[in-house]
C-alpha cells in the first residue's frame, strides 16, 4: 500500500498530459453517468422528467448521507458495516419515544444522539483495544439490530407526530426539490471542504497512507478515528430520522443490507478500500449513478434482485477498469519503480 503511494508521488512530479486528465476516475464516472442518462432516457420516455427525477432522489438520499462520512472511514483504512443496524437502533429508540409522547424536536435529538452513541461505541472499542474495524463493526452490526429485534420483536412502531413527516416527505417551499436532497448537498459541501481544504482532511489521508508514520508525525490517530466513527454514527442517526419520517414506521428489519450498498457506492466513487485515496466529488457522482441506474431499471420493470446483479458487475468492472487502462498506457521509465 505504501509503495503504491511512493509511485503516485513520482507521477505527480512527472509532467501531466491531457491523457492523464482523461484517465482520472471522476472523468470516467461522469462518462458512465452520462451514458446511464442517455440509455435510460432512450429506454423509457418517463426517465427525463423533472418531477420524476426529483422524487426518485428520496429513495437514495438516506444512503447518500451515510456515504459521506463513510468516505472518511474508508480513507482512514477502516470500514463500518454497522451503519444500517445503527439506523434500525435509532429508529427503534425514536419509535419508543414517540409512543411515549415526545415531540418532533425531541425525536430528532434522540435519533441524532443514539446514532452518535452507537458510532462512539464502535470507535471506542476499535481505538481503545486496537481491533480491526471490520471485526468490531461486524459484532456491533449484530448487536445493534439485535437490540432492535429485542425491543420490537415482530411488532412495529407506527405512531409519529404529523410534523415529523416533514424531514423525509416534504419539499423546499413551492419548488419540487426535496428537503433531503438539499440537506445532502449542504452536508456534501461541508464534508468536501473538511476533507480537501482543512488540515483535518490532510491528517485523514496521512492516517490512511501510513498510520504508524502519521502517529510519529504527531497526528492524534486514534482521536481522529474515534471522531470519524462518531460522526458516521451521527449521520446514520440523521439518515434514520429521514428514513423513519419518510416511511412513517419502524420495523426491526428497516434498512437491512444498506451497509453493503453504501460501501459499494463509496468504492465505486474511487475511494481506495486500502485507504489513503479518494475524494468527495467522485462519490457524489457515484451516488447518482447508482440511484439513477436503479430508477431507470425500475421504470422498465427490472426486479430488484436483478438490479443487484448489475450493480455488483458495475462495482467489479469499475475497479478493474483503471488496471486495464494502466496496461494500455505507454510504458515509461517510472513504471519500473513499482518493482
Amino acid at each position, binding site marked *: 500500500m505504501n509503495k503504491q503511494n511512493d509511485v503516485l508521488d513520482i507521477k505527480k512530479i512527472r509532467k501531466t498530459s491531457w491523457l492523464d486528465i482523461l484517465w482520472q476516475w471522476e472523468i470516467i464516472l461522469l462518462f458512465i453517468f452520462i451514458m446511464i442518462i442517455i440509455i435510460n432516457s432512450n429506454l423509457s420516455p418517463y426517465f427525463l422528467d423533472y418531477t420524476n427525477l426529483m422524487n426518485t432522489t428520496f429513495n437514495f438520499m438516506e444512503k447518500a448521507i451515510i456515504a459521506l462520512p463513510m468516505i472518511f472511514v474508508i480513507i482512514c483504512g477502516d470500514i463500518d458495516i454497522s451503519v444500517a443496524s445503527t439506523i434500525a437502533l435509532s429508529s427503534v429508540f425514536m419509535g419508543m419515544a414517540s409512543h411515549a409522547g415526545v415531540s418532533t424536536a425531541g425525536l430528532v435529538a434522540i435519533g441524532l444522539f443514539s446514532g452518535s452513541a452507537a458510532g462512539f461505541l464502535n470507535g471506542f472499542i476499535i481505538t481503545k*483495544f486496537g481491533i480491526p474495524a471490520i471485526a468490531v463493526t461486524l459484532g456491533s452490526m449484530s448487536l445493534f439490530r439485535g437490540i432492535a429485534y429485542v425491543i420490537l420483536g415482530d411488532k412495529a412502531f407506527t405512531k409519529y407526530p404529523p410534523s415529523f413527516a416533514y424531514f423525509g416527505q416534504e419539499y423546499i417551499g413551492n419548488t419540487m426539490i426535496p428537503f433531503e436532497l438539499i440537506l445532502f448537498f449542504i452536508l456534501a459541501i461541508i464534508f468536501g471542504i473538511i476533507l480537501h481544504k482543512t488540515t483535518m482532511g490532510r491528517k485523514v489521508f496521512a492516517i490512511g497512507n501510513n498510520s504508524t508514520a502519521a502517529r510519529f508525525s504527531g497526528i492524534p490517530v486514534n482521536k481522529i478515528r474515534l471522531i470519524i466513527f462518531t460522526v458516521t454514527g451521527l449521520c446514520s442517526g440523521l439518515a434514520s430520522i429521514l428514513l423513519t419520517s419518510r416511511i412513517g414506521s419502524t420495523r426491526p428489519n428497516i434498512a437491512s443490507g444498506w451497509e453493503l450498498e453504501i460501501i459499494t457506492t463509496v468504492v465505486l466513487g474511487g475511494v481506495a478500500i486500502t485507504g489513503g485515496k479518494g475524494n468527495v466529488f467522485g462519490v457524489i457522482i457515484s451516488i447518482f449513478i447508482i440511484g439513477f441506474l436503479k430508477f431507470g431499471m425500475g421504470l422498465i420493470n427490472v426486479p430488484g434482485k436483478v438490479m443487484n446483479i448489475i450493480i455488483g458487475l458495475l462495482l*467489479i468492472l469499475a475497479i478493474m477498469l483503471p488496471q486495464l487502462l494502466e496496461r494500455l498506457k505507454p510504458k515509461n521509465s517510472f513504471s519500473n519503480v513499482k518493482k
Partner: protein
Amino acid sequence: MMSLFKKREFNLFVFILFIIFGISLRTPSFLKLSNLVDILNDTAILSMVAIGQLMIIVTGGIDLSVGSSVALSGMSVALLNQYHPEIPIFMIILISITIGLLLGSINGLLVSRAKIPPIITTLGTMSIYRGLVFVLCKGSWVSAHEMTEAFRGFPRRSFLGISSLIYISILIVILFLIFLNLTRTGREIYGVGGNKIASQYVGINFKKINYLVFALCGGITGLAGFLWVARYAAAQSETAIGFELQTIAACVIGGVSIMGGSGTIIGVMLGAFFIGIVYNALTMINVSPFWQMAIQGFIILFAIIINTVMDKRNQQLMLRRRSFNE
C-alpha cells in the same frame, strides 16, 4: 501443560463447558445426548463453511459471498432434482460441489489475477450470485414435495444414530486438518497471511495460494449448498441470507485473527459449536428467539476484546521473559 492454558482454543473450550453447565442447571434436558446431537446437526453446515472462511481469512482476505454461493449452488441442484429426478444423488452432490468450485474460482481469479481486494470482489459477487438465484428460480420456491425422497432424505440418513450430515462435516474437518497442518501448501497458506513479502522471498506462489483458498472455500460452499437445501427441504431466493456473517463470526469467536496469519480449525469448530449452543440454548430456556441476534453480536464483541487483550498480555509476558534470560 502451562502452554495449554495459554491457548485461545482452551479458554474458549472452558468457557463453552461453563456455559453448558450454567444452562443445564436451568434445564437439565439440555445435557441429553439427543440434544447435543441436534446442536451438532445444526452447526454441521456452519462449521464446514467456516473452515473455508478460515482459510481465506488466514491469507488476509474475507469472503462475503459464501451465503449467496450456498443459495446459488443449492438452488441449481434443487431445480435439477425437480426437473430431472432420475439423476442419482451422488451426481447431484458432485454437480453442487462443481458449481461451488466455479463460483469460488471466479472470486479467486478476480482477487489473484485482477488484483481486486477480496472484500470488494466478494461484495460484488455476493449481489451477483444472489441475483442469479432469483433469475434461476424466478422468485418461486422449490418445496419439499418437488424434491425426490433420496434428495431431501440424504442429510438425515443415519448410521449408528448419527446423521450423514455430521459424518460429512467430520470428514471435511479431518481432510482440512491434514491439509492445513501437514501439507506444504497448507503451511504456505499461513505463510502468506503471516507475512506476505517474506512469503514471496521464500518462493511461495502468492497468486496460486490466493486463488486456491477461494476455490477450496467455493468447493465446500457448493457441498454446503446441497446439504442446506436438502436439510431444510426448501430452496428459495432468500436461502442462507446473512450466512456469511455467521461464518465470519465463528472464525472470530474461534480466535482467528482478522488480520490474517493465525487461526486453527479446532478454534473455528469451537466457535461454530458455540454459536450453535447459544441458538439452541435460548430456545431451550424459553428466551424469545428475537434475542439471538443481540446475543450473537455481544458475544462477537466480547470474544474479540478478550482475544486481543489476552494476546497483548501474552506478548508482554514473552518480551519480559526474554529480557530476563538475556
